[in-house]
């Protein structure tokens, strides 16, 4: 078994963008996880901010839930702007 905790790492690549998952690191605590993530994932200006969280704390959707969760949005075309046909006179809207 691992001596250290597994942390997931999220990096904001530049100001104005979301933090994005990039991978994981092992560390004794969160502070060390940040340091390790900095060494591992930002050696070439890849980030301006780092989040870490213990992997075990993440709750994720299960594969077999994919259909009940995500299929309902597929048949709701009226949620998209392109569903509404307007006359050309309206111009750009």
């Amino acid at each position, binding site marked *: 078994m691992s*001596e*250290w905790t597994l942390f997931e790492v999220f990096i904001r690549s530049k100001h104005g963008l979301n933090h994005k998952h990039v991978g994981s690191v*092992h560390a004794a605590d969160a502070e060390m996880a940040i340091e390790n993530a900095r060494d591992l994932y930002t050696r070439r200006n890849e980030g301006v901010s780092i989040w870490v969280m213990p992997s075990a704390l993440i709750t994720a959707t299960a*594969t077999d839930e994919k259909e009940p969760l995500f299929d309902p949005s597929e048949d709701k075309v009226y949620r998209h702007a392109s569903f509404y046909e307007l006359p050309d006179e309206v111009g750009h809207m």
Partner: protein
Amino acid sequence: MYAQQVETGTKTVKSLDEMGAEERAFQEKIDAEIKIEAKNWMPDNYRKTLIRQISQHAHSEIVGMLPEGNWVTRAPTLKRKLQLMAKIQDEAGHGLYLYSAMETLGADRDEEIEKLHSGRAKYSSIFNYPTLNWADMGAVGWLVDGAAIVNQVPLQRTSYGPYSRAMIRVCKEESFHQRQGYEILLHMMRHGNQAQKDMVQDAINRLWWPSLMMFGPSDADSPNSAQSMAWKIKRHTNDELRQRFIDQTIPQLELLGCTVPDPDLKWNEERGHYDFGEIQWEEFYEVLKGNGPCNRERLETRRNATQEGAWVRKAAVAHANKKQKQQAAA
């Protein structure tokens, strides 16, 4: 190739009709180039093959630091030393990206590293050769990283998502390695004295054949290739990649003004490829079995590093626990 002879646990590749519903759906996704992700259903042997391949690949990156580490204190200038350290740090990074991808399959990093240390897991045969002179640092970067790139570029499209994403990151960083290696050799050939030029040729003479062996046994002796290719873990055969590497490397060799130790090497106009001599596969299998020039030394170095670093890891845990208690009390 950084992963050689990865066992797939299957003798023959099943057709879609022979598969159960789950496996068939899985194979159809692969055939449609849809990436498999950690939580998706996958055949047990696919999971095990990936754990073997990714861990072997990761171990290669980690052990690959050792032949280069040998030259950090001996680099000829501060510039070369900084470059070498950056490259070695990248190798550690690549190993860790890969272990991270491997862990998504449910494997435990410490357990897999223990398999390396006890000799149950393999790493690339190439790192069992010594680095005897400074030109070896150039030749390793140019040939060994060059061969690794030829192998890794198609792995960016491998079927397992986390492995593919790790490879994309690795490939972005790897071209610096090859270019710095080639530049070392070019500099020695253009500005060096005769002894230094001889070093370059000597390094190429020793590392040429082992670099070609990195791609693994020829296709006829590669019983696991068919399954790995059906799963799209592997995208090209060993011989295809080896040929690609030779074809792109020889013009660079000529620009250096050097030769390779292969009297049979010549351009074949008809094939549009270089022909080359027979690889000494006995040597390859001996190195894989643990009998290469540096196998024992490499593993011993790894084991010592782990043992000697044990107190640091324990201290870090103790310190983290102490801080947590202090925070709880405050």
